């Protein structure tokens, strides 16, 4: 079908064009702006749904445009690409609704929503990229379009956070570019291929390939917040809550983790990467990051900072699952891309609600907050249980598969990491839940707003309820077709391992 050649491009344009128009709107035209935002998000969702159905039935969707004399800009919707696209498209819609509610009276909304749309455009481009240069293009676009969102508040603290973010990501981008060009000059192609395209490379180049692997993973590890590249993430918490949600669940961190999956499976190929001996160090690094993030999270009193360190820990599950190099573990790692997304976005929405409604920013201020805002805290509780890995929330499924996968390839030490991380997660989430539900609320909240009948404004309340339900459903209905788990299995069969 001729249409299939253009749908991937349309998916990218469905947020790019509204975003560009939004920049030109004045602050007062909020109706037009909201319409464009929602229209773009819904159109994208429709297109992605169409492609999901098509790819399930083995149709091909590919847009190819000339970029350089012998390199194309390729957008291709394979199973793995669609997995990430679906996540960001769905969460973008929810986050847009949330952001409209959150920023209701704040200035410069046109600029904010313009860059917000660009950010999602870049994320979808990262997901659909069919070769490494297209990936690089959107990856850098993501860096650039996130920066104005981080410094949005225009304070000195925000400027410094932006500077720190850029220092890390520009250096990361440089490593990625260097690795990409080097790889291209070595093998003359950059096309993502199921099971990789490097296994035929002459053995004398294997040391070079190892260096290239380190460069690529180093560049991606900055966004994926691996040790030692994660200093920017907690600082970036100064941004408004919808931006944090975007950074942690939909876009930036995910783009890094997704890139690691791409490099390991579609550039090197898992078997070849394992034979080069590069996957084991990646697994250790991921495991170390998991423990490090959890330990640091324990000592944060600022709620958003604790969540930020929790992200560092949780996103590394993806890298860990990928690097264990067993079929079941990779299913666990890939499915965590979606699971972590819906759970973490729920937590950030809730943190934003507490800040906006009650002025609560610190965990020490959260006593009894569950009585004042029961729905918000119910959603938070689901998210937190998911992070700990308690069944039946989605996080349990990820850990189960990573654990099984580790045993499958005799990597028992991973179980210790999983257990340790679960304990630490419990140690930093359960006290919050205890304080929120069982302690007495204070006489007066730090900075309370009255939203009338509901505990907070509906635009703020409904998004976390939706994402919390998704986190629950992804766990309970994991065995149904089109569940994240089943789709991850499809990816594993079609793209990762030779059947």
């Amino acid at each position, binding site marked *: 079908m001729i249409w299939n050649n253009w749908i991937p491009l349309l998916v990218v344009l469905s947020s790019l064009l509204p975003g560009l128009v939004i920049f030109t709107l004045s602050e007062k035209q909020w109706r037009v702006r909201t319409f464009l935002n929602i229209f773009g998000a819904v159109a994208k969702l429709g297109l992605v749904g169409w492609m999901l159905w098509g790819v399930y039935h083995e149709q091909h969707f590919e847009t190819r445009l000339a970029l350089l004399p012998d390199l194309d800009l390729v957008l291709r919707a394979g199973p793995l690409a669609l997995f990430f696209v679906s996540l960001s498209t769905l969460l973008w819609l929810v986050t847009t609704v949330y952001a409209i509610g959150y920023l209701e009276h704040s200035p410069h909304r046109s600029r904010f929503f313009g860059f917000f749309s660009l950010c999602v455009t870049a994320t979808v481009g990262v997901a659909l990229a069919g070769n490494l240069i297209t990936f690089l293009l959107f990856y850098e676009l993501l860096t650039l379009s996130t920066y104005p969102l981080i410094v949005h508040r225009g304070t000195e603290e925000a*400027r410094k956070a932006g500077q720190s973010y850029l220092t890390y990501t520009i250096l990361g981008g440089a490593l990625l*570019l260097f690795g990409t060009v080097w790889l291209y000059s070595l093998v003359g192609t950059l096309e993502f291929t199921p099971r990789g395209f490097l296994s035929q490379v002459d053995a004398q180049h294997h040391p070079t390939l190892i260096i290239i692997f380190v460069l690529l993973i180093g560049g991606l590890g900055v966004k994926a917040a691996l040790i030692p590249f994660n200093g920017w993430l907690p600082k970036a918490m100064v941004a408004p809550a919808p931006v944090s949600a975007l950074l942690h669940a939909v876009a930036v961190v995910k783009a890094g983790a997704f890139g690691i999956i791409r490099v390991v499976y579609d550039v090197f190929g898992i078997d070849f990467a394992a034979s080069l001996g590069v996957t084991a160090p990646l697994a250790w690094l991921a495991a170390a990051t998991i423990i490090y993030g959890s330990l640091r999270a324990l000592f944060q009193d600022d709620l958003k900072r604790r969540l930020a360190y929790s992200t560092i820990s949780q996103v590394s599950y993806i890298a860990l699952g990928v690097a264990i190099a067993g079929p079941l573990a990779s299913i666990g790692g890939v499915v965590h891309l979606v699971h972590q997304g819906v759970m973490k976005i729920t937590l950030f929405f809730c943190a934003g609600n507490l800040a906006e409604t009650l002025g609560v920013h610190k965990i020490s201020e959260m006593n009894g907050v569950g009585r004042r805002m029961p729905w918000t805290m119910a959603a938070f509780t689901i998210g937190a249980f998911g992070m700990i890995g308690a069944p039946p929330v989605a996080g349990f499924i990820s850990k189960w598969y990573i654990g099984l996968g580790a045993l499958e390839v005799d990597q028992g030490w991973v179980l210790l990491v999983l257990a340790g991380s679960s304990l630490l997660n419990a140690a930093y989430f359960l006290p919050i839940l205890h304080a929120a539900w069982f302690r007495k609320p204070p006489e007066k909240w730090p900075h309370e707003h009255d939203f009338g009948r509901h505990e907070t404004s509906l635009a703020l309340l409904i998004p976390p309820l939706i994402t919390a339900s998704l986190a629950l459903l992804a766990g309970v209905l994991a065995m149904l077709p089109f569940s994240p788990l089943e789709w991850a299995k499809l990816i594993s069969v079609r793209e990762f391992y030779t059947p």
Partner: protein
Amino acid sequence: MGAQLIQVDWAVVLIMLPLSAAMLGFLLPGMARNIGLLAALLILFTVVGLGWQLTQTGVYSHVAGGWLAPLGIQLHADGFSLLMLATSAIVGVAVSIYSTGYFKAADDQRFWPTWLLLWAALNALFLAADVFNLYVTLELLGLSAVTLASLTGSKDSVSAAMRYLLSTLLGSLAFLLGIGLLYHQYGSVDIAILSERVNDSTVSWAALGLITAGLALKTALFPFHFWLPPAHASAPAPVSALLSALVVKASFYILLRLWLGLFDFQQDSTVANMLGILGATAVLWGSIQALRQIRLKMLVAYSTVAQIGYLFLAFPLAQTGGNRVWYAVAYLMLSHALAKAAMFLVAGNMMLFGGHDRIVNLDRVVQRLPVTVAAFGLAGVSIMGLPPSGGFIAKWLLLEAALAQGHWGIAGIMMLGGILAAAYVFKVLGYAFIPSPVPHQAVSVPARMQWMALLLATLAIMAGFVAQPLMQLIGIGALFDSTGSMP
């Protein structure tokens, strides 16, 4: 109709049009602005005509007045000339429209005739087919550039212009000596004839040295860059844009043409490597200096020093890297011209708006001049070499050549230069977001001044998407494809 249009000598029009407009503007100072604007639009149209002609009939040659080479004036246009003519036309039109907002009526009558004269010199230079005409146009270009740089008459600008004048005269002198030697030895000034006769001899080497040194001085290659930052930073913003985007490119254009046309006899690569080393130093030195500046215009000017360095990195790479490297250089010339012109226009807007251009006191201009800041950001993307942009295409090709040949030093310098560029671009953007203790005077900036900056910056980004057709256009005449095939 089409058949007649293809006969038109568009190239001659390209020289005569700005020249006669300059005369008219000088004679009728009250109408100088309108004459200039009309001429600018006509030039753009004429370049399109020439481009169409080239795609239809290939390389264009013309003998003015019927006199042949040593005596008469020959014109020659291939894809590379077309690229430079088109770049000048686009930047020229944007800067012309911008300057209607920037200059008061009193400055108009001094600005327009000189600027049109400079434009005529540029076009004639890009079309010249012999080295003597190259010299004449280069001299004319240098003198009109110095005149424009001293337009404000302030103490700073006059002393900077004086330094600029001395450097440009010294550069031309070396160039003249070089072509004098060539004429003496080989009896011709026609590039095509010379390219057949020039061989590996002491005179050729002396000419090579003199010409390269003179043009490097005019192009402001490190360590000959000393004149550039003060001259470019103290000139009025539209003039800075022209100087940085076009004038330094013109001398580099000559260097590249003669290098490919005449000096391909030199097998050993000492000179090429030396140019490469100077280029690498320029990238680092220019970027670090840019980062250290406290004034926006100085920052942008030092960024030009760094970007010129990239152009010279190509010389060592091209020895084995072949034509792709020169295509990359041509692409970099185009995208740097667009992006750098945009940046200087932005600097002019901020200066007008706030009354100063101290970076740390930019005071929330991002909210108050959003179009201008967007232009700076987009231009910055191309300068940093991040995708998608023209700068990215050029740097990708250069980096690819460097890595394929194992030139690790050059590859490392390019990465470092990109990171430093990001540091100085985002330094400006960061301060544009936050309030400053020193308030701005907040003079309103005409919309056309803001949009012209954005237009140029957007074109620099768009250049990242049209690499394939553009390179085909540049390839007309195959100047880069087989070294020494200058017709």
